[in-house]
């Protein structure tokens, strides 16, 4: 297991190298000049040239690239072209908020999704199962933007029990609506996959064996069926969580949540290269790490996978 993790971590290096290179090149290929977002509506060429010089944009691409690689290796992500703030500082400020939102959304998705999936999959309450599955269909297809506005309308305006938007200095009240909005699609997927897992596992030989050897229904469901249904759920949760950590642009915009997603979009619109590159790199690292954790967790859920991992 240790060697497996070490190997996966080593793999990070070529991946990150690729990410740095691709983002760097994309930035310089797409149209739009970063200095134009620094000068406002009225400017002269001389000012543009001076700013290009200030920002080092007048140097050849290859030199800038090598220079950037060198700085990344020293963990220096540079300063924002637009605000002049160190990129690392900005990410450090934004990431905890994104993490909070992603964590809360994932919690709701897993708790709600598993509960709904188990109810629907166990088939004990047929009408509830059918209703839940219809709801999950809505859940996977409802646009985040619309859902967010509906929730604001209901909880903030009609019922007046939650604030419509904002960060509120980290208060839980402000977290509920964006987390619920962000979790909705994942929750629905988790519910559907859990239900499918329950139905599939229910007809497996090992379940029949468990019942035949006289295990109680609760033990059969909990120990055998549930654990087997969990594998695809972990995959979904891992992938979704990884992408939530990169910030969720729509949810963050609707709720004015000051996370990474909005930062990245604003930076792209302003061609703020250092921030875009830094944030993308940071996201890539997180995504790879989350996937690694997911892969490792398979082993704990299913010993057969652990064996393969150890062999590899």
């Amino acid at each position, binding site marked *: 297991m240790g060697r497996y993790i070490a190997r996966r971590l080593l793999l990070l290096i070529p991946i990150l190298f690729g990410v740095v290179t691709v983002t760097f090149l994309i930035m310089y290929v797409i149209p739009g000049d970063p200095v134009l977002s620094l000068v406002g509506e*009225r400017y002269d060429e001389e000012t543009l040239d001076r700013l290009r010089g200030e920002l080092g944009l007048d140097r050849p691409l290859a030199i800038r690239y090598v220079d950037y690689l060198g700085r990344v290796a020293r963990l220096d992500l540079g300063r924002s072209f637009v605000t002049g703030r160190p990129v690392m500082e900005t990410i450090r400020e934004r990431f905890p908020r994104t993490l909070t939102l992603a964590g809360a959304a994932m919690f709701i998705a897993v708790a709600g999704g598993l509960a709904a999936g188990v109810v629907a999959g166990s088939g004990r309450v047929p009408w509830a199962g059918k209703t839940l599955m219809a709801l999950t269909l809505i859940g996977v297809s409802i646009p985040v933007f619309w859902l967010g506005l509906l929730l604001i309308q209901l909880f903030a305006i009609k019922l007046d029990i939650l604030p419509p938007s904002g960060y509120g200095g980290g208060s839980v009240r402000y977290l509920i609506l964006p987390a619920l909005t962000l979790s909705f699609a994942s929750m629905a997927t988790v519910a559907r996959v859990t239900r499918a897992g329950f139905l599939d596992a229910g007809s497996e030989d090992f379940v029949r064996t468990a019942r035949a050897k006289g295990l109680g229904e609760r033990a059969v469901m909990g120990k055998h069926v549930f654990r087997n249904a969990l594998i695809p759920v972990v995959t979904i949760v891992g992938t979704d969580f990884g992408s939530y950590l990169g910030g969720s642009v729509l949810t963050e915009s609707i709720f004015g949540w000051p996370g990474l997603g909005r930062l990245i979009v604003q930076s792209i619109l302003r061609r703020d290269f250092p921030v875009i590159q830094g944030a993308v790199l940071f996201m890539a690292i997180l995504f790879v790490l989350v996937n690694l954790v997911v892969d490792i967790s398979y082993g704990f859920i299913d010993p057969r996978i652990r064996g393969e991992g150890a062999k590899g």
Partner: protein
Amino acid sequence: MIRRLLSITAPLISALLILSCGGGKGPDALRLALETEPTNLDPAFAVDYSSGWVSSLIHSNLVRFEPDGSLVPDAASGWSISGDGLEYVFRVGGSRFSDGSAVTAVDVERSLMRLIDPSTASPRWWVLEPVVGAPAWHAGRGDRPGIEARDDSTLVIRLSSPAAHFLSLLAMPAAGIVSPRAADSLGRDYGRMPVGSGPWRLASWTSGDDLILERNPFAKSAGQGPPRIEIRLIPETMTRIAEFEVGNLDILEIPPAELELWRAAGVRLLRSPELRIVYIGLNNGKPPFDDPRVRRALNMAVDVDMIIGQLLFGAAQRATGIVPEGLRQSPLPEPLYRYDPEGARRLLAEAGYPDGFSMEIWQRENPESGRVLESVQAFLARAGVEVRIVTREWSAFKQAVDRGTPDAFYLDWYADYPDAGNFLVPLFHSGNRGGGGNRSGFADSAVDSILDLASVEGDPAQRWKLYEEAEERVMEAAPWIFLWFPVRYEVVSHRLEGYEIPVIFNGQRFTGVTLR
């Protein structure tokens, strides 16, 4: 299993619900919202609307705008202008920076010199362009420009030629007076920790979330206005509306599409025509748009009044001239181009395009411009002109337009200061082609010389006559498809009193408002 899941989640959910009830709202703060976050509160680098707006609350200038657009003393207690209009003498005194130190004429001199200093690399140095020697100094050569503190309370500024709008330039956010000591010690970080002598000082700035301003106890206006201003950063229009509806905001701008709803609700709406013109710039250097007949025909082919009525719900005034009504000394002229698709076809045939032609109109990503351009597209199709709408995001759009790539582009122009010249000169003087503001590449030597004359004319009535003459010539040459001047609508909370929409964006400093 179900029971176990419920037993975990139920207490958590109820805890969240308990936490969600109640909660305080800042009753003593004026609560405002911005769509985009300021990037830099340093006057030398505040180029976007949000930065300039907040920076103006924190910094004072020698002179400033009142909400009605008039100029009043700010850090200067008074001034005199020499008979030839070349020398301005300001009396400085009585105001303090938010760190408690006095604002002296020497501080103002250093602050203004900082703006034109080449090492500052401010994109807004041109605000001081009329100052004698400033352009050369900014280019890194020449003698010291004509900004000089004679003593602690007297500042003298000399101009290279009379500039009637010079005081207005001094009231722009870029000419805000920074504490030279803070600017020196903070360097690039000044933009996040500004020290000005304006009515407010920055208490906190949570990136992406909000900015809190509190009264500057050392300001001339100390004690006026609410104790604090909370500026929330809310990118979505619908969310801002929701925040206002639940009572979390004191001022809300109403987008045109929502106007009918608010009117029907019987809410008192504040209305203010903006100092802004919306237009479709035609690439005057590129055939067929180099032919004035073609450009006139395009103006005749679009029913601007219909678009204003149907798509903007009346929240605009048709641009039958270029200078908005609030800056005119005479009413807007009668429309020179009336909607006449047949006439447009005839004019196009006369210009050698009996079968019309096809063209691209570029726009930046924006739902409103999308709707407008689709309707323009339909109108032009009736005159035989086939339009392809090209959408780019802002940075790419701006780059292409400034390079003169597109056939035509949908754009607007905001006044930097309330002056007719701030529309005509940047937009139509041939010296400002491209990034200077004249993005349609219009060039007419007669217009240039009229505008040059106007900018040195001291007599306002005479000056306006010249501007009117230039405007008439431009309207006839039709370098654009002239669209409209937007009208801004706002609604304010019941507790807010004494607020009015400022004519120019940095004209409202909130010292005259009260909260009940």
